[in-house]
């Protein structure tokens, strides 16, 4: 039953996650939290690990969740499930020589979906920040330490782009955040 849920859950992610990378996070969050496969904290950990290891984030998350839920078989099923929809869709697109994507109705639907995804990603990022800087969001009180660390990280990340052409990479930001975590929480 669990393996079937893994298959269905990650087929959903693979079928509806447009854009790749972080675009998949809101969807994965929906699926993973609703089946109770991970809690929010663990999900955030895995996203950070995915960012710091090679490969697409979606594939990394599927492998991890599959593995802890159903061992190696679970990992294989979840990973294949997340890849399969895009594999089949690309084959169809190549076969139809892109006619499908040039279809005006498909274009019209996509013109709604694309900005919607951007809004969903933005809201997910904003919600995750709020959740981490408040003790029991919604409600609770602000965790001053977390607010300060978040603000410093944001200034470093966005500020570095003003100084250097490309700014610091996400992996470097995660490294700095890990160091900050040890320095700030390690001494308490």
């Amino acid at each position, binding site marked *: 039953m669990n393996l079937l849920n893994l298959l269905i859950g990650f087929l959903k992610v693979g079928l509806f996650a*447009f854009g790749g990378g972080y675009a998949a996070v809101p969807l994965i969050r929906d699926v993973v939290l609703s089946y109770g496969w991970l809690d929010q904290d663990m999900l955030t950990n895995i996203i950070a690990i995915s960012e710091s290891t090679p490969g*697409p984030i979606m594939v990394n998350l599927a492998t991890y969740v599959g593995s802890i839920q159903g061992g190696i078989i679970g990992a294989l099923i979840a990973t294949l499930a997340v890849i399969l929809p895009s594999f089949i869709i690309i084959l169809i697109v190549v076969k139809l020589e892109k006619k499908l994507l040039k279809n005006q109705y498909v274009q019209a639907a996509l013109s709604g979906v694309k900005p919607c995804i951007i809004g969903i990603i933005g809201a997910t990022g904003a919600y995750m920040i709020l959740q981490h800087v408040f003790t029991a969001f919604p409600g609770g009180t602000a965790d001053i330490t977390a607010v300060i660390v978040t603000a410093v990280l944001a200034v470093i990340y966005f500020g570095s782009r003003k100084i250097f052409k490309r700014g610091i990479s996400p992996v470097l930001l995660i490294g700095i*955040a890990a160091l900050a*975590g040890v320095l700030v929480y390690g001494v308490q």
Partner: protein
Amino acid sequence: MNRIADLFLTFAKIGLFTFGGGYAMIPFIEDNCVIKKQWISHDEMMNITVISESTPGPIAINCATYIGFKQKGIGGAVAATVGMALPSFCIIFLISLFLDHFLEIRWIANAFRGIKLAVGILILDAAIRMIRKMPKKPFTIAVTACAFAAMLFISIFSVRVTSITLMLIAAMIGLIAFLIAKGREGGAG
């Protein structure tokens, strides 16, 4: 070398050395498949990027499937796609066996408390970058703003509506807007 094996090994290398996923992988795929192997042209590579944006799934997987299929049909598509996914599969599978024990070590757990704060920033940044590249039409801005507000509301108040539902609603709104515009054109003409 056998072309199927070459596809598998090339994409396994790309899968092993590209961090971050998404658009971070495109320059690396271009370097290997356009410049070194000359499997596809630069124009085709641009096309794949556009197609990847309009189809679901990780961009790297989309590229691998497309290039593999163009080179060697279904067999090539499977070889390239599996090659792309295999390195990260092995690495994450190993991590999944040890992560719980790792997180019991206090300083590692503390490091992850810091990392958590960075992840939200990175996701927000992904959205900001996409907004910058988005065409600034009133329709797209309105849909983005509504989706943002709806998703935030859903998350905060734990409403049982998934992001898939929001996307399907947005697809319908896109279609309706298109039909209304078309109807007007027809009426005027």
